[in-house]
């Protein structure tokens, strides 16, 4: 009976997750492109051989991991700080919480366009300020070594509120008498943060880590709008490459291969995060 009640949810997952995955795996074993007239022609895994030898795919993988690692870790640190502030007993807490969620509520394309103009040279505010104080223009979006940092900033700005929300929920599960008892024993606020808050927040941090890693690994709209993958392809992510192959080149077989490969990579990364977390847990014996 219990399982019967779960069937609708299970069917939904089957429909939107498992089926596409099976279909894409199957597509990745075929040539399906404008050249084949979009017919499915089995090609004995030559898509996969092409992928293994595709420098561009591996370069995009490294760039995607770089983007995900930096944006997610900055987001989590910032989110803890913001959540701590928002959990204080202050006036207008409700309004502050709502306002802090705004960046997350904005459509990514719109805010990415905003960031593109903020980093614009020479009219964007950032370059205006730097020219004003004598540093000249920064040309961030046209510099292959720096443009990715701009995309990280855009992502951090947008998704920190989401992480903060999860952490805030975590903070509220910590009973306040724990802090009171700790204070009576003579613990400082910093000590209570390290000894109580952080350990008890760990499950929430892990949750947001997995959530955000999965999202950041599939980053598309933000980069597509801000830089289009350039300059010199320095910001191109795996998702953009898969999109190019499917929608621009009409090479669906190879696009499916890229997506399945990135799925495998993502699962591996999440698995490592999990193992690392468990090791940390047993070490600290929390």
């Amino acid at each position, binding site marked *: 009976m219990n399982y019967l009640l779960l069937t609708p949810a299970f*069917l939904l997952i089957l429909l939107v997750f498992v089926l596409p995955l099976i279909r894409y795996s199957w597509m990745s074993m075929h040539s399906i492109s404008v050249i084949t007239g979009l017919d499915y022609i089995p090609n004995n895994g030559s898509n996969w051989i092409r992928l293994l030898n595709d420098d561009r795919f591996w370069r995009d993988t490294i760039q995607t991991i770089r983007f995900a690692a930096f944006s997610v870790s900055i987001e989590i640190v910032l989110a803890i700080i913001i959540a701590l502030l928002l959990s204080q007993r202050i006036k207008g807490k409700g309004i502050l919480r709502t306002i802090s969620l705004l960046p997350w509520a904005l459509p990514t394309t719109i805010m990415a366009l905003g960031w593109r103009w903020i980093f614009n040279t020479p009219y964007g505010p950032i370059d205006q300020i730097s020219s004003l104080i004598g540093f000249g223009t920064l040309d961030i979006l046209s510099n292959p070594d720096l443009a990715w940092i701009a995309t990280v900033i855009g992502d951090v700005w947008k998704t920190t509120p989401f992480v903060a929300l999860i952490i805030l929920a975590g903070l509220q599960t910590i009973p306040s008498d724990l802090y009171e008892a700790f204070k009576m024993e003579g613990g400082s606020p910093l000590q209570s943060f390290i000894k109580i808050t952080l350990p008890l927040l760990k499950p929430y941090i892990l949750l947001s880590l997995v959530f955000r890693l999965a999202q950041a690994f599939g980053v598309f709209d933000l980069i597509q709008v801000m830089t289009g993958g350039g300059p010199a392809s320095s910001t191109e992510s795996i998702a953009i490459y898969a999109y190019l192959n499917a929608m621009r080149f009409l090479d669906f077989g190879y696009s499916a291969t890229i997506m399945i490969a990135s799925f495998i990579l993502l699962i591996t990364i999440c698995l490592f995060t999990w193992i690392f977390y468990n090791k940390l847990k047993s070490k600290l014996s929390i």
Partner: protein
Amino acid sequence: MKSRITKLLISSFTTLLLPMQSIKADDISSKTINILMPAPFADSTSYLINEYNTKHKNHKKIKVTRGPLETEAMSDLAISSLLLGNSPYDIVLIDVTWLPKYAKAQWISDLSLWFTKEEAKALASGAKLGNYFEGKLYRWPLVADMGLLYWRKDLMDKPPKTPRELIKISKNLQEKGKVKYGYVWQGRQYEGLSCVFLEVINGFGGNWIDHKGEPNLNTKNSYKAVSWLKELITEGISPKSVTNFSEPEALQIFESGEAAFMRNWPYAWAELNKDKSKVKGKVGVTVMVAENNNLATATLGSWGFSILSSSKNKLESSTVIKYLTSSSSQNYLFKKYGYTPTNTDVLKDKVLTIKYPILSSLEKGLSVAKPRPQSPLYAQMSDILQRSLSSILTNKSSIDEEMNRANKSTKDIILSAGK
């Protein structure tokens, strides 16, 4: 208890299946002629379409779907609808570079049944290009579009003709402090960069893809073209940030009077002559610089109507296309929205030319228009070129190394397609 749970399960299944019913919605589509166009085109043609719908009471009504503004986003929408099969549209307004791909995928149908050779002859020479694939007519042009060189009439007597002259005039004006930058163009890693490059490589006597279908990116003339673009940046003629410029960024600098030259499409003309523009009435339009006059080239970027293979209203669709691209419609679209006409009689209309002198510049631009390589693999070729150019312009790699690589990759792509 059990029956309640069964009810609950049934209701949740129906909720899951409900969205699937909407797929059957194409019943309405046979009662109207459905056109998918980017939003700006939907706006500009709305008057013409209303007129058609009220005048032809016994015809099927035209229904326009407003697509996205950006060219590539529009392509994504069109392709998604085509891939799902049973596309709700009869007519799609398509960009010149999509045609070979769409034709090869058999999404669009041969129009020669409805459009005669005489009608095709009435098109301006530049507008004739980019409508055919493997000898068949697949598209009828609504508006011609080509790359133009905008120049400041208040700063010089006549525009430069050669790449050297452009640099010389720019430097001179920059040294005198008349403008901050010489020349602004589209240097971002996207389709616009390929358009810019096609004009420059042709201007230096080279070719992107030659008449045999072979890439010519590692030739002397190609190197000269890339070096010139790079020189623009290193010499400060163009701002360093030009490597992230698309059309709006270039337009903004030129519009605020900070540059002497700009490469852009005809739409910029109307923008530059609006009241908020600082260069209103000070701008001239000419063709792109080239080492000699015969080589001057304008990248063709026109939009035209195609009838989808899946349409059940092909004959009526062709009537609608003829109406929307008729000389009187073109006359209206040019006067009201500055759309470059594709029919020779409108383009060379004497009365119109006297009233709108820009028409002769547009005609000149269109006469040297060249399409980008016409291949179903064009998107891949352009992507390779954009990556390499962006890499060179941002000092990530050297010209000959990168252009050799681009040439080889392009060759590989063509080979892998078995042609």
